């Protein structure tokens, strides 16, 4: 298993574990799951790219897509509060 595959595997195990913990805690909002997964992704990406600089630039498009999703959730929540 290569370095990139190891990172994806590590991230996969981590988010499944945290998803199960959130399920066990009875969290009902999908945006909380999304935000936790996003934070975990950013941490994994940062750790992984410290060993391999090129991986950081390879992961940038995914981070942008992730953040766009987060901004959408944030905007929806703000509108919900204002409304």
């Amino acid at each position: 298993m290569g370095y990139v595959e190891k990172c994806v595997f590590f991230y996969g195990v981590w988010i499944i574990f945290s998803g199960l913990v959130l399920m066990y805690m009875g969290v009902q909002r999908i945006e909380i799951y999304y935000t936790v997964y996003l934070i975990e992704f950013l941490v994994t990406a940062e750790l992984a790219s410290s060993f391999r600089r090129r991986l950081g630039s390879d992961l940038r498009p995914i981070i942008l897509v992730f953040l766009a999703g987060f901004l959408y959730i944030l905007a929806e929540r703000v509108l919900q509060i204002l409304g």
Partner: protein
Amino acid sequence: MNLPRRWSIGICLVSFGVVILLASIFFGQTNLGGMGLASLLIGLLVLYVPSQTTVEPDLVGACALSSFINIERFLLEISPQSRAFYLRVNDRLDTPQVYLPMSDDSATLPSTVHGRGSLIVDKRDDNRIGLILEAPGASLLALIEAEAAIDFYDVERGNILDVLRSSMVESVEAVGDIRGSFTDMGLRLKIREGPLLGMYQSITKSALNTARRIGCPICSAAICAIVKSEKKNARVENARHELGYHDITLTFL
């Protein structure tokens, strides 16, 4: 993991995630949707991240092999048996270089040298001439330094083996493992082959003399890193290439 297998795993995970997400919305079970989202994200990562092109080691080996055979012939012609000296790096921007004496009895580096391009002559003894070559692993070392964002010039002796391992094994995945120990006079390094096994086996088989005296590109990159960190000249006592292993013995001068 090959491409079709990766694609099938990625598509399975994405499909599973989408089905779970839709089911969670349909049945109003949002916590189940969290697991669906996790599966969807892992699937998308599996599909996206490793989609870089990979090159077979045999293909790279075939591209480099003829050049190595030419270097082997050339070096056998002009300096049949002498051992190579890796020259100390005086500045972090210097390219690591190798001095190869042309006469067999040159066991030491000439102290006063007069350079004429890549040919150098000892000022006190005109018969002591040698070649200054760029180390075969210099470009690989530059790639390793760029990828791992380190400069071996700043690495202390106590950390060099750990830094070498993390950069060559983790960052560029050029080798499987690196073990080494400092002796009174130098260093003994054992490198286990990694994904480029096929490439280096064919190179060391066809250019055995060069690989044994100067080192193959992998050995040379490791030696360059050590010399850059130690800031000392080093003589390659031996660079053996056995099944899946490189065994290097260096003496610092």
